[in-house]
């Protein structure tokens, strides 16, 4: 063979350096996204008992949906259960930081809001939380994207993003979708 062992090792080491370089670029891109755009995975280790979720305060039926608190924080609370979301339609303002909180009383579910970076698993025992800002108005589909049983294919909700002028909370701070 014309090529020497040292030359082989050298070329392999050069390539390994390139490979490590590629890997480093990827990690730097992730760090950039994290530091500059605050892009994080939706971790939230907030435990809640699924079996008594419906008896508690935050996820009681009357408190679900979008609510604006006294200090202007917009929070939407949604329950995922076999095989529906409650509420099935939520309304949120565009161009404003919002928080979505999800919980389930039964099995694993998950959601994504189409066309956005809102994506999280909903695991019984935990409250899932996503902070985001919607930039475009319109009706977005929010399907359940994790297998939750035989009714999974039909499980979805609608997220309606409205311009800020149309986003008007009532006296209690709640904003509901219009009845369809």
């Amino acid at each position, binding site marked *: 063979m014309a090529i020497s062992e040292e030359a082989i090792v050298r070329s392999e080491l050069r390539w390994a350096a390139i490979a490590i370089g590629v890997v480093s670029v990827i*990690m730097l891109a992730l*760090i950039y996204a*994290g*530091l500059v755009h*605050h892009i*994080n995975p*939706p*971790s*939230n*280790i*907030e435990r809640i008992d699924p*079996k*008594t979720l*419906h*008896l*508690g*305060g*935050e996820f*009681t*039926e*009357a*408190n679900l949906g979008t609510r604006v*608190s006294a200090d202007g*924080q917009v*929070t939407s609370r949604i*329950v995922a*259960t*076999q*095989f*529906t979301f*409650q509420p*099935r339609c939520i309304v949120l303002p565009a161009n404003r*930081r919002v*928080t979505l*909180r999800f919980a389930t*009383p*039964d*099995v694993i579910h998950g959601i994504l809001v189409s066309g956005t970076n809102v994506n999280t698993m909903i695991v019984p025992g935990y*409250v899932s*939380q996503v*902070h985001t800002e919607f930039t475009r108005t319109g009706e977005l589909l929010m399907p359940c994207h994790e297998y939750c*049983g*035989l*009714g999974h*294919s*039909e*499980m*979805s909700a609608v997220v309606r993003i409205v311009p800020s002028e149309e986003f008007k909370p009532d006296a209690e701070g709640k904003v509901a979708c219009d009845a369809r």
Partner: protein
Amino acid sequence: MDRTPDPLDRPWRVWASVAILSVFAFSLLFGFVLLPVIQGRAAGVDAFESICRALGIRPGSPSGRQPETSAKAQPTTRVAWSAELMDALANPEAAGESVAGSCAGCHGRDGRAVDLALYPDLAGQSAAAIYKQLHDFKSGSRRSPVMAPLVQSLSEEQMIAVSAHFAAFPLRPLPAAQFPAADPAIEELVARGDAARRIAACNACHGEQSGGPTEAPRLSRQSREYLAAQLHAFKSGERRNDIYSRMRSVAQPLTDKEIEGLALFYAATRTY
């Protein structure tokens, strides 16, 4: 077997350990400290809290404020399933016959209603389903001027016992009378649901192998009038004791014709 340490090996051990420890040091620096602290600074969260959130020992994200909540609980049912309750329903302490005596006037001694047009069957029904309705009648989560006074005197153990008692009876056999052939549109709803209206297949919760909600009742050979009445009640919102609107959301988009069709399907079914 390697007995003598090979001089070729030490560099491998050293470099491998260095590589791995460097990766950890890098991840610790960025993932455990820098990212959360810098994100927290922009969001008004202090450094210690940011790191705790990044580690997961406190809830929330380093990059956002935690929302507050002060909502009052308004449960639509007071039943909460638990391992102990499921165990008690499977192995009740008290015997149910004595309690069941007062149910027999309408629901029959063997759980088969004396008049299906007026009362539902209890024979072969899921014990969890019966227990939940009894509890809901007692707490007022489900309104019934007939049932509410009758269950007020029942204790928890008695409700469990009578539920298990009726669950053990066999289903009523199908009458000899001929039923009309099943409507394909109804069979479609039962087996496949309707994606356009976001209705899951009825089987997805009420089928034998569904893995659906604990309190989902068996619908086979139930009173046609009762099934239709309950679907109408869920549709109008008059009945609200389904947890998180599992039944209300399904019944609401159904047409009256579909409700009648479903009630007939289950009343006449041999296979479900």
